[in-house]
């Protein structure tokens, strides 16, 4: 039993053990152990290309690990048959980086989509639920707009309303703050925390936006080179003595992650061109 489990008797919502996953010959994850507790905001951080989005796809069963197991709410995701996996996904929401709204239908229909697909509610009930979900993200007035008429921040809020349409037990946020202006970012930060606390949803936020993520996270995992290099509360990470974590949290241009891409010495390169 890990230290986290012995301190917290409630089993974690997501339990990852010995995860190994590769693309081609490159190992994206090489022995990752990770617990995502219930009812908390858990942040998974790391620089671009470390496989944060891949981790969400593995948790959601869209990708299959080479080794190891991923359990969500006690169910081994990759041992499930397709109908069972789909039933589990109905209890998981995911906010994609792009929003992933269906572009040929309106905001209202996008939010109503999972309700129409998975429930037998009447249209009048669906209307009420959709308006409530849109109200929660502050976009009830935008229900008749098409996705192409929304700003990036609005699109993500609509996608968030859609993600909570079926009242899931957890929401996975894939880079929710990337490319947002300060106002949209503030709104998203507040929404993630509010939804987590008010609706008692467990949240997994994958991000490399340090300040915003540390503001709302209860627990943080830092990933690098296919492994969890550090974990703890935001305060513990800020005070971390680890070189890698310090470079990432403080945004230092050079350190364990070098500024320069590996190359021959500059002198050699220049002389080669001159000769």
């Amino acid at each position, binding site marked *: 039993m890990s230290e986290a489990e012995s301190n917290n008797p409630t089993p974690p919502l997501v339990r990852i053990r010995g995860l190994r996953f590769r693309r081609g010959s490159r190992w994206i994850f090489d022995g990752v152990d990770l617990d995502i507790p219930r009812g908390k905001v858990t942040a998974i951080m790391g620089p671009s290309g470390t496989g944060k989005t891949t981790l969400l796809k593995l948790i959601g069963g*869209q990708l299959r690990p080479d080794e190891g197991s991923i359990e969500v709410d006690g169910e081994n995701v990759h041992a499930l048959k397709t109908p069972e996996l789909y039933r589990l996904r109905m209890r998981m929401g995911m906010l994609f980086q792009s929003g992933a709204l269906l572009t040929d239908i309106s905001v209202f229909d996008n939010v109503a989509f999972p309700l129409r*697909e998975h429930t037998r509610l009447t249209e009048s009930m669906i209307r009420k639920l959709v308006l409530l979900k849109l109200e929660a993200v502050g976009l009830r007035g935008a229900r008749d707009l098409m996705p192409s008429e929304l700003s990036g921040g609005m699109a993500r809020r609509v996608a968030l309303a859609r993600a909570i349409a079926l009242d899931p037990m957890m929401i996975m946020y894939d880079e929710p703050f990337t490319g947002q202006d300060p106002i949209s970012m503030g709104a998203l930060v507040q929404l993630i925390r509010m939804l987590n606390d008010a609706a008692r949803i467990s949240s997994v936020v994958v991000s490399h936006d340090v300040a915003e993520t540390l503001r709302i996270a209860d627990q943080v995992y830092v990933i690098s080179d296919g492994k969890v290099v550090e974990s703890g509360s935001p305060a513990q990470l800020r005070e971390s003595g680890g070189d890698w974590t310090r470079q990432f949290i403080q945004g230092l241009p050079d350190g364990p992650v070098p500024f320069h891409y590996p190359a021959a010495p500059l002198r050699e390169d220049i002389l080669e061109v001159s000769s």
Partner: protein
Amino acid sequence: MIGHLAKLGGWGLQALTRLGRAHLLLLPMMRGLLDILRRPRLLLDQVFSVGVLTILIIAVAGLFVGMVLGLQGYYILSRFGGETALGLMVAASLVRELGPVLTALLFAGRAGSALTAEIGLMKATEQLSGLEMMAVNPEHRVLAPRFFAGFLSVPLLAALFSMLGVIGGWMVGGGMLGVDQGAFWNGMQNGIDFREDVINGVIKSVVFGFVCTWIAIFQGYDCVPTSEGVSRATTRTVVHSSLAVLGLDFVLTALMFS
């Protein structure tokens, strides 16, 4: 030399892998028919976007092809005093060959490329992943309605093409060149065999509809999800569909009329 052979082998394996993936895609699309039967609206929406919106180009092309056939046919037949067979010549050419083939080629250019681009962009903008995470199978919800819509639309469009082609041939032959109208229609009625000509033409258009839509959907679903990937997939759809139609036309013609 070995390097070239290895490259060639690599291409061959890649092509076979893609072909295998394309065949594997057919199964879930067929299963999607159950969803369509439960919600026919999904199919009707796609029939509109894939079939109805292609009517204009099919109608205009059919009319002009028929007019050209009328003109060319008249000049050739009049050398032998056989102008009265113009109706038969126009109708047989259209129903047996030009209707199904040209409709499929135009369909691949207009609707097939649009299908590939739409599905490819849905993939690039994570809409298909989004559906999966909402516990909705994109192969049933997105691909299957488009597949069956294309499959149903092509034979209907081919029938429209042939009908307007015959009218075009009649306008030129009967209207402009003075071919006897009774002989024009009578020759067509007597010379065209329903089973031999019409049914075989319909079979061809069904096969072409199946192949063109399948290629278009597979290319979109299998594309690299970038702007360049979608662009390449769209080009491949038109090229592969056109070659498949022309190749299959030869095979089917040989089987049907030999």
